[in-house]
């Protein structure tokens, strides 16, 4: 069955809509990207740009009000959206690990941490209770929790935020997944704890060779760990490329502005911060123009009438923009 040549994950034209009482929200609009095994892709974008919804759409973990209205998700060449319920459960349980945004609420408060880890092991690895327990302790140790056997019988509220996030990672890693999706795993944490977790993930990556999608809005984190970066804006991918290339050669005005607004801890201190004026658009309708155009200093008339498609700028780097930063002119596409 397995297509060895196919990428680990291949997403094409994914569209997700929320049906709300005050109308539809087009949270994800035609997202396409691919992920190779062992690769770490960082996804950045501001709040509400659709990062979480995209990832949730992949494994159909959306809330009830959401509907995937189009697109294709291939996991190792298998069509995820066409899977039966059982296959999907198997996929979620065995091959994909999720780490969610908020460690405080993502664990079930009434079950012990041990139970929440072993549950997955027993269901998907067919382990006995005792085996699962041993493995769970091993996993807790792996994510750097001391005295893991004892902590297995503790409840989530007895852990600190950083430790809970590590427990989430342990759960995600439980069945040696091929793909780990981490949704802002460190946003809620302090920098020193964030450093610990980043270190941990780097470490695990070396050991386990998983594909990782790492969502964040901290460009610094991405710069530190990612192989490739996806920049999202208003439910779309506006730019995508290898990390060094993207930081060295940002193509999209939004990416550029983002990098410019950031103050730094080292080096030159700018006198005044750059700002991006205006607000992201509301997602009530499917965009027919470039969603960034109203805030863009370089917008052309065409940007207001047509939504730019992604243009390859070489080196696996592409951008959804017609403005060419090198020339300051409209791209010839």
């Amino acid at each position, binding site marked *: 069955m397995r297509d060895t040549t196919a990428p680990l994950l291949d997403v094409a034209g994914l569209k997700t809509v929320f049906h709300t009482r005050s109308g539809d929200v087009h949270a994800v609009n035609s997202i396409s990207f691919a992920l190779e095994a062992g690769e770490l892709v960082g996804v950045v974008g*501001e*709040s509400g740009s659709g990062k979480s919804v995209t990832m949730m759409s992949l494994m159909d973990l959306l809330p009830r009000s959401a509907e995937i209205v189009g697109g294709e998700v291939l996991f190792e060449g298998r069509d995820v959206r066409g899977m039966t319920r059982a296959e999907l459960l198997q996929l979620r349980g065995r091959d994909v690990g999720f780490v969610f945004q908020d460690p405080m609420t993502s664990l079930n408060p009434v079950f012990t941490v041990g139970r929440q880890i072993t549950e997955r092991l027993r269901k998907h690895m067919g382990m006995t209770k005792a085996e699962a327990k041993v493995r769970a302790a091993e996993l807790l140790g792996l994510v750097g929790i001391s005295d893991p056997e004892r902590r297995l019988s503790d409840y989530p509220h007895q852990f*600190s*935020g*950083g*430790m809970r996030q590590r427990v989430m990672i342990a759960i995600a890693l439980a069945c040696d997944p091929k793909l780990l999706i981490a949704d802002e795993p460190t946003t809620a944490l*302090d*920098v*020193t*704890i*964030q*450093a*610990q977790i*980043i*270190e941990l993930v780097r470490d695990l990556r070396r050991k386990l060779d998983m594909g990782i999608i790492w969502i964040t*809005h*901290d*460009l*610094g*984190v*991405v*710069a*530190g760990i990612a192989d490739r970066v996806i920049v999202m804006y208003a439910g779309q991918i506006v730019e995508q490329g290898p*990390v*060094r290339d993207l*930081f060295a050669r940002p193509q999209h005005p939004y990416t550029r*502005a*983002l*990098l410019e*607004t*950031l*103050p*730094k*801890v*080292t080096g030159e*201190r*700018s006198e*005044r*911060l*750059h*700002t*991006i*004026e205006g*607000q992201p658009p509301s997602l009530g309708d499917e965009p027919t123009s470039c969603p960034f155009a109203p805030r863009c200093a370089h917008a052309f008339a065409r940007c207001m009438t047509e939504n730019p498609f992604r243009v390859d700028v070489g080196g696996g780097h592409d951008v959804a923009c017609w403005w060419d930063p090198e020339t300051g002119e409209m791209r010839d596409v």
Partner: protein
Amino acid sequence: MSEALVEVRNLTMHFDIHAGILRRKVGAVRAVDGLSFDIMQGETLGLVGESGCGKSTTGRAILRLYDPTDGSVKIDGVDIASLNTSDLRKARPQMQMIFQDPQASLNPRMNVSEIIAEPLREHTKMDSAARDARVRELMDAVGLNRAFASRYPHEFSGGQRQRIGIARALALNPKFIVCDEPIAALDVSIQAQVVNLLEDLQRELGLTYLFISHDLSMVRHLATRVAVMYLGKIVELAPRDALYSDPHHPYTQALLSAVPVADPEVEATRKQIILEGDVPSPAKPPEGCNFCTRCPKVMDICRKVSPEFREHAPGRFSACHLMDE
């Protein structure tokens, strides 16, 4: 440097913990534990530290939103910590606060002009026309469209809401403003707008800020001096550039090294000091130096004696036994 506008001496804020059958006091959360520092006229003092280390508590105790357990806070020569209710009320206009969560700090049932006018109603005898005029003025000052005056907070974006909060804080022409993580809840693209606004206002109005944040890079951008807190205590206080280029305290060093930089080239080579373990609970701080449980340079003495916070180079204060050698 100019004279001190705010003098904080031995500021201590403990929250009692009650437990047991009779709800007796069994201990205290030492949220703020004996802080002493000055804030100069017209400067921005940055206060950084990890979550739960007592930054907000410090800010609130300085403004006497909490009654401090101990210590004194002089603002412009008046000891705020010991004023009675009515004198405190009279002293309020000169000190104001901007809050972390722009959504939570605005009453959802009041419209913008009511929110901004509230301090005016409390402290001035302006008639409603004068108040309206002043509200307009303030809205202009913080860059809010006057047409929004009768809108409700939920109709604004985060950055706009924070501007409303700032306008409210400015209404009474304060001298001193505590900014409690005013940008933490905002998106990167919006943070810059607010920070620039704060800077502009400081320049125009000669304000003094206590800028609380855990974003070290933003503090670097904004502050003139920076204080680093750990578990209820200031471990290091120094002028900005000195602190960032040459941190003395091991915690400051670790903190600075942990901040990721948005540049893959730098990141690839950056040396990080990874701290082990979690921050101890402020209810049960370790014996000796508070940082001794995680400090990479820990010595025996650190586990026994709490280091003194003192100035060991001009303008550079810290609390570490390493400095005492």
